[in-house]
């Protein structure tokens, strides 16, 4: 799957998706984060909860992605290299669900970084200047989504937010590391004798 097809697919899938108001979306996510802040004490807990929520979302995202692509008559072939997965995620997946494209920076054969310049979740957000907010990963939901969706296609990954515009960097960077390619199977009990 070449880069330009991935981008073109992403754009046409985005056109077909039902849209929500960007401000409503951002404000809803904002109140979600502030509720978590009220419920949990440490920023690690908050980040972990966001990642878990993202995981539940991601598990459902990949089915929707493949179903919508099929409906639109696109062929998304199985990826032959992790780099292909990265391109499809960045150009088609992100574009389809959020309307923004991400850029891929390959670090090695089994890890890459996604660079997101415009983050629809953090519209209007400014983190308070208290030092305890230094470690909060506001957009950690993305990490969970990536982990959840890739697990459904048998790729176990670990995702972390490396750079965050809200913390002062110039771009949002998510690092994705492939840990294991899972094997389909129902478990040992079902092995045939």
């Amino acid at each position, binding site marked *: 799957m070449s880069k330009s097809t991935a981008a073109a697919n992403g754009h046409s899938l985005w056109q077909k998706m039902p849209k929500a108001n960007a401000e409503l979306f951002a404000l809803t996510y904002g*109140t979600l984060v502030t509720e978590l802040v009220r419920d949990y004490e440490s920023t690690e807990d908050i980040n972990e909860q966001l990642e878990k929520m993202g995981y539940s979302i991601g598990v459902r995202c990949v089915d929707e992605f493949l179903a919508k692509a099929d409906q639109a008559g696109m062929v998304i072939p199985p990826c032959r290299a992790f780099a292909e997965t990265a391109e499809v995620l960045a150009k088609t997946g992100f574009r389809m669900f959020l309307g923004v494209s991400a850029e891929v920076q390959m670090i090695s054969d089994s890890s890459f970084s996604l660079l997101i310049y415009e983050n629809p979740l953090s519209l209007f957000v400014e983190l308070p200047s208290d030092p305890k907010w230094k470690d909060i990963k506001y957009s950690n939901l993305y990490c969970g989504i990536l982990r959840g969706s890739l697990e459904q296609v048998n790729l176990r990954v670990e995702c972390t937010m490396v750079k965050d515009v809200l913390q002062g960097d110039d771009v949002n960077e998510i690092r994705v590391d492939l840990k294991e390619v899972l094997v389909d199977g129902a478990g040992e009990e079902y092995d045939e004798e």
Partner: protein
Amino acid sequence: MSSSQVLLFVIVGKNEPLYEAEFHKAGTAGSSDSVTRQNYFVLHSALDLVEKAAWTTNQMYLKVVDKVNQQQVSTFLTAGNIKFMLLHGGRSEDSIKSFFSDVYELYVKLSMNPFYRYDTPITSKSFDTRVRAVARRYLA
């Protein structure tokens, strides 16, 4: 003591001031302690008059609500009942109205921040920088 050199801008919530800024004309030094205290006194004593004036019109911009000596207090009332008050020594209505409109826009963007709670003191540095820039533009 030329009091049109110093402008005092205060954002007042239900119970307490949320934001304060003094704007000086470029080149002049900050005002002395007694002048500052007098400014605050005049501005806060105008609060009752703001409440009264709010009932007379359905506009957000309440123009000049109080005149003391050479100083005037102009007020803008936001939709959430937050009062923007400006103590000045006579500026054109239009420039004050534009100033208030721009600050209102900045205030709305600030209140969209999920980490800012309504009616709490405003501590954002970027808000402060932007308000001062607006003041320089319309009130210098």
